[in-house]
């Protein structure tokens, strides 16, 4: 039985924390994790396995835990798949187990275990993927029984923060090596960030009792951390995991700011995502112990020896009363001695090796612990907890076990299959790994970025070596950062060097024992229920690449990404293939090192701040007058202004009708505006636009089309000549930035000889568009110095003047096909102008209209919208705008218009479309075919680009791109969408006022 010791550990016994796990109440102390507190309460069963729903307990004490995944908190604040080993206990904590139904102890899914022979590697691929169409039915059932936690309800109440940081040295890992590096760099005045994923710094020093500089190791840890905290430019971040090592020393850190508290402190985020640029990185990420692959090694109570030690020393929790230990290396000997000293019985230490250093054997003998050399555990007994283990002699070649089966009674098994340096971040940085045959592990090799790997992460496990390593890395970082040493350098920390040990015996799977043990499962990847025989099967079935084996068997996937399983899996695959591990290689290590929640990744970019909402100067007026908005680029533009009782169709019809018959008002501020100056400005426009600009008179405006070099329409708009060398270009609302970049790229990289400057003035002006047959009357009523008579102020000209006391620039241009004026005033005067127009326009029942009415109005007269009638595959010829294309000059995209594909006659061309049912508004994007009832495959000959109801025509109408459509006016085609279809007649894409006389009135 597991439980709490009376003394020891870094916990505060005076304070009691109450918590719930699966509706039962338990008690723990500050310093506990959820995992240690459950163990202290005698709870071992913490989860069910992924595929077979086998009962599972803790394997580990740290980030590598594969089994004990829990759901924390509830409702909108709930969070699934948290490792109980990384959850710090707080008062009132509520957790529940996952992947079980209805309860952890009685789990219906366990029947999967009975069918285990049916679940070999690749089972899903083999069984459920055929026929492919049936997958959607299987998937529902599979997801229910094979899976991780449930997603929380929407609406996370917590906030998350991002933070950029810059430093000379980022030290990842606060164990002895990392601390030594941080200490050295901090004392020299460098900008240092030190992070550790644990709640406290110290790493392996937290509980192993080793001394540094002749004092307790933890005293040295406290001194170093205090130094960092006192330094102006250094910071020590506990509870912070480096999750990604990206290009150019860009490292992402996930700080758990409020996770250890019942709720984050007021104003504080739950988590903070750091984005660090470091001149140098010191990777002091330590090592992770490997389990041993042996029969039923997944039973609750079978744990890593380092985890047994951690629970004992950090939280004073014994994992059992009688703990057997099996190992292939020296590190577990300390664990045996410490357990014994804490009053835990250790029936035997079972070592795979034929011999060990006499000093080690003597240490056990002195404690009365039996040492069994050249032996292996071949079977674990017990289902919900360990009841004993079977031990047999291991042959020298490691291929067989023999002799008598000796049963040892125990209630826990601590195992150490060797150590894997935590090379994930080094690998992410682009560094190559090298397999070390002696350690049986991958070590950091060559390459990567400006970083040093130190201590256990580099395969050096001796404390003195770790300290020396870290100190040297700190010095090297100072040198790289160009920080000169001031005064006398302090000595590096020192510790007693340990004596030479015996190398580990690397055996990737323990041979199967007799009887039941011969067929028992020997798990390699506990989280994904992958066994040694699954891997061997995959290799036999022909999978050679380790990346393929991973995907076929799922080994190394899931939330732990194979932290405890990868090297064992490689060893087994290599063995089956008869290759060296170094030849098989590893799967790719990718960020994140441990899972990051979407909340942390989103930071404060949520809700209204998901993306910037751009506001025009009149936005508050629109809001106050009930506008319904739609996004246009990042702008939120009024789509329509419904009156009481109106739906969208009624409001849009009213706005369209009012503008066509009297007077409408549009907020046109969002149009992109670019100021173009310089003696070559006209020549520049000639090259950018398809039509000619040199002869445009000052005071006049012209519509222009821009193409990309492939001949496809990219943007359009009206540009005015303000002076001989000065133009005012307008662009579509969503494309303003792209057009300016486009202009700059040509000026800077291709035509630097042109003397032209382009500047964005989009935001300088508020623009109100007045449109309708009464527009001139309104303008004349405002009072000012401008003459609006057709002779004094003709179509496609502009004038500066004063309107109702406001300095204004007025463009007489039209996008609605009606008599229109676009009034530009200083942005800060936008509301004043708008309110003036609303007051003065009341005489003609002025009607504010939104983008929807604007779209109807312009479509009625056949004006295109770039991005609606065009999609990057449409030329000016396709749009019927041949007249816009100059034959006399070169311009961007011109040559492409003569390419065989762009010049062919049956391209999709812009047409009008009148549905036979006059009230049927076909959906935009609907496909067009020749006629109804064709046998498949039916060729698609076009699609609908714009579609509306016109209150002026009294019927629905649309624009479409149809193959060869320009020559097919009068023919009938079939429009298809969502299983429906309807006939429609092709016509010219102009439905009202084809000669444009209304705009020129």
């Amino acid at each position, binding site marked *: 039985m597991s439980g709490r010791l009376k003394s020891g550990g870094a916990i505060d016994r005076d304070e009691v924390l109450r918590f719930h796990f699966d509706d039962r109440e338990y008690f723990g102390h500050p310093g506990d994790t959820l995992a240690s507190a459950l163990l202290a309460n005698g709870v071992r069963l913490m989860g069910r396995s992924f595929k077979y729903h086998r009962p599972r307990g803790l394997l580990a004490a740290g980030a590598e835990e594969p089994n004990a995944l829990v759901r924390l908190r509830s409702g909108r604040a709930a969070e699934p798949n948290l490792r109980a080993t990384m959850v710090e206990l707080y008062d009132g904590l509520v957790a529940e187990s996952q992947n079980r139904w209805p309860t952890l102890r009685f789990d219906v899914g366990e029947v999967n275990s009975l069918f285990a022979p049916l679940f070999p590697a690749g089972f899903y691929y083999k069984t459920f993927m055929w026929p492919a169409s049936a997958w959607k039915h299987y998937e529902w059932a599979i997801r229910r029984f094979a899976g991780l936690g449930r997603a929380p309800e929407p609406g996370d109440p917590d906030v998350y923060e991002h933070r950029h940081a810059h430093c000379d040295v980022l030290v990842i890992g606060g164990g002895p090596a990392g601390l030594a590096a941080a200490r050295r760099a901090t004392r020299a005045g460098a900008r240092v960030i030190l992070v550790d994923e644990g709640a406290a710094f110290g790493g392996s020093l937290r509980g192993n009792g080793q001394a540094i500089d002749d004092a307790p190791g933890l005293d040295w840890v406290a001194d170093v951390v205090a130094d960092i905290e006192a330094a102006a430019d250094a910071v020590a971040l506990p509870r912070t995991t480096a999750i990604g090592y990206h*290009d*150019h020393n*860009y490292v992402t850190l996930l700080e758990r700011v409020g996770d250890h508290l019942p709720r984050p402190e007021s104003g504080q985020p739950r988590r903070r995502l750091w984005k660090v*640029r470091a001149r140098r990185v010191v990777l002091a990420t330590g090592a992770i112990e490997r389990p041993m692959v042996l029969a039923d090694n997944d039973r609750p109570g079978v744990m890593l020896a380092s985890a047994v030690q951690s629970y004992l020393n950090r939280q004073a929790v014994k994992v059992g009363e009688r703990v057997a230990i099996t190992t292939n290396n020296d590190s577990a000997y300390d664990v045996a001695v410490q357990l014994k000293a804490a009053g835990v019985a250790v029936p035997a230490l079972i070592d795979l090796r034929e011999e060990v250093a006499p000093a080690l054997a003597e240490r056990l003998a002195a404690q009365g612990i039996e040492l069994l050399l050249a032996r292996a555990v071949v079977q674990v007994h017990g289902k919900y907890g360990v009841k004993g283990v079977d031990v047999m002699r291991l042959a020298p070649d490691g291929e067989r076990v023999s002799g008598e089966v000796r049963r040892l009674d125990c209630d826990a098994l601590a195992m150490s299959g060797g150590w894997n340096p935590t090379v994930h971040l080094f690998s992410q940085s682009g560094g190559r790994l090298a397999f070390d045959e002696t350690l049986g592990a991958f070590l950091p090799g060559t390459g990567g970025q400006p970083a040093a790997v130190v201590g256990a992460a580099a395969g050096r496990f001796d404390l003195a070596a770790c300290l020396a390593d870290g100190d040297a890395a700190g010095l090297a970082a100072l040198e790289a950062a160009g920080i000169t040493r001031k005064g006398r350098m302090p000595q590096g920390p020192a510790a007693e060097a340990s004596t030479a040990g015996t190398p580990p015996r690397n055996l990737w799977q323990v041979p199967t024992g007799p009887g039941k043990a011969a067929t028992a499962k020997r798990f390699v990847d506990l989280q994904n229920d992958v066994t040694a025989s699954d891997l061997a099967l995959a290799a036999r079935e022909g999978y050679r690449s380790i990346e393929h084996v991973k995907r076929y068997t799922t080994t190394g996937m899931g939330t732990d990404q194979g932290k405890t399983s990868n090297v064992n899996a490689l060893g087994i695959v290599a063995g089956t293939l008869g290759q060296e591990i170094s030849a098989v290689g590893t799967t790719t290590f990718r960020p994140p090192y441990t899972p990051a929640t979407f909340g942390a990744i989103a930071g404060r970019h949520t809700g209204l701040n998901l993306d910037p909402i751009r506001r025009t100067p009149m936005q508050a007026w629109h809001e106050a007058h009930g506008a319904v908005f739609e996004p246009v680029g990042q702008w939120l533009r009024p789509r329509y202004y419904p009156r009481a009782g109106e739906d969208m169709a009624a409001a849009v019809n009213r706005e369209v009708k009012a503008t066509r018959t009297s007077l409408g008002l549009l907020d046109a501020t969002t149009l992109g505006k670019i100021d173009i100056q310089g003696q070559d400005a006209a020549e520049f426009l000639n090259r950018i636009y398809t039509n000619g600009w040199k002869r445009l008179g000052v005071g006049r405006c012209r519509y222009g089309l821009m193409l990309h*070099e492939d001949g496809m329409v990219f943007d359009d708009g009206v540009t005015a000549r303000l002076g001989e060398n000065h133009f005012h270009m307008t662009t579509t609302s969503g494309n303003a930035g792209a057009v300016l*970049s486009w202009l700059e790229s040509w000026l*800077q*990289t291709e035509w*630097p000889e042109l003397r032209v400057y382009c500047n964005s003035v989009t935001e300088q002006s508020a623009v109100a568009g007045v449109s309708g047959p009464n527009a001139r009357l309104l303008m004349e009523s405002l009072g000012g110095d401008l003459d609006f008579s057709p002779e004094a102020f003709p179509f496609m000209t502009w004038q500066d003047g004063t309107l109702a006391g406001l300095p204004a620039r007025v463009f007489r241009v039209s996008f609605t096909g009606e008599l229109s004026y676009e009034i530009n005033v200083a942005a800060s005067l936008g509301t004043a102008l708008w309110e003036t127009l609303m007051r003065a326009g009341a005489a003609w029942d002025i009607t504010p209209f939104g983008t929807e009415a604007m779209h109807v109005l312009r479509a009625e007269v056949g004006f295109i919208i770039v991005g609606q009638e065009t999609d990057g595959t449409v030329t000016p010829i396709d749009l019927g705008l041949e007249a816009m294309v100059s034959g006399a000059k070169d311009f961007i995209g011109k040559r492409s218009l003569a*390419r065989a594909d762009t010049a062919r006659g049956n391209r999709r061309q812009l047409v009008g479309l009148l549905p036979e049912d006059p009230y049927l508004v076909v959906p935009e994007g609907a496909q067009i075919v020749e006629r109804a009832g064709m046998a498949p495959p039916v060729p698609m000959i076009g699609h609908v680009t714009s579609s509306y109801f016109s209150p002026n025509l009294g019927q629905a109408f649309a624009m479409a791109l149809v193959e060869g459509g320009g020559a097919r006016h009068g023919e009938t085609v079939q429009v298809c969408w969502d299983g429906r279809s309807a006939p429609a007649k092709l016509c010219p894409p102009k439905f009202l006022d084809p000669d444009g006389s209304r705009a020129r009135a």
Partner: protein
Amino acid sequence: MLLITCPWCGVREEHEFACGGEAHIVRPLDSHTLDDAEWADYVFMRRNPKGVQYERWVHNDGCRRWFNMARHTVSHEILAIYKVGEPKPEFEG
């Protein structure tokens, strides 16, 4: 995420920049004399090397200047950054 030294503004994060594709592609002045294949070569065809790539970048959030970069497409090492009009440095690979 690259760390890019803008020739004018200094060291900045990649997200301040935009990449404009392969550099040193000169627009033909006599486009009307080119056949379709030659023109398509200029418009569409680009190198995609495993190795050193010469590309155009623009510092959108800073000085709005275009410049050229020689970058290794595997290691993402930036071998050179040079202004428009400066000679193209030669690198192996």
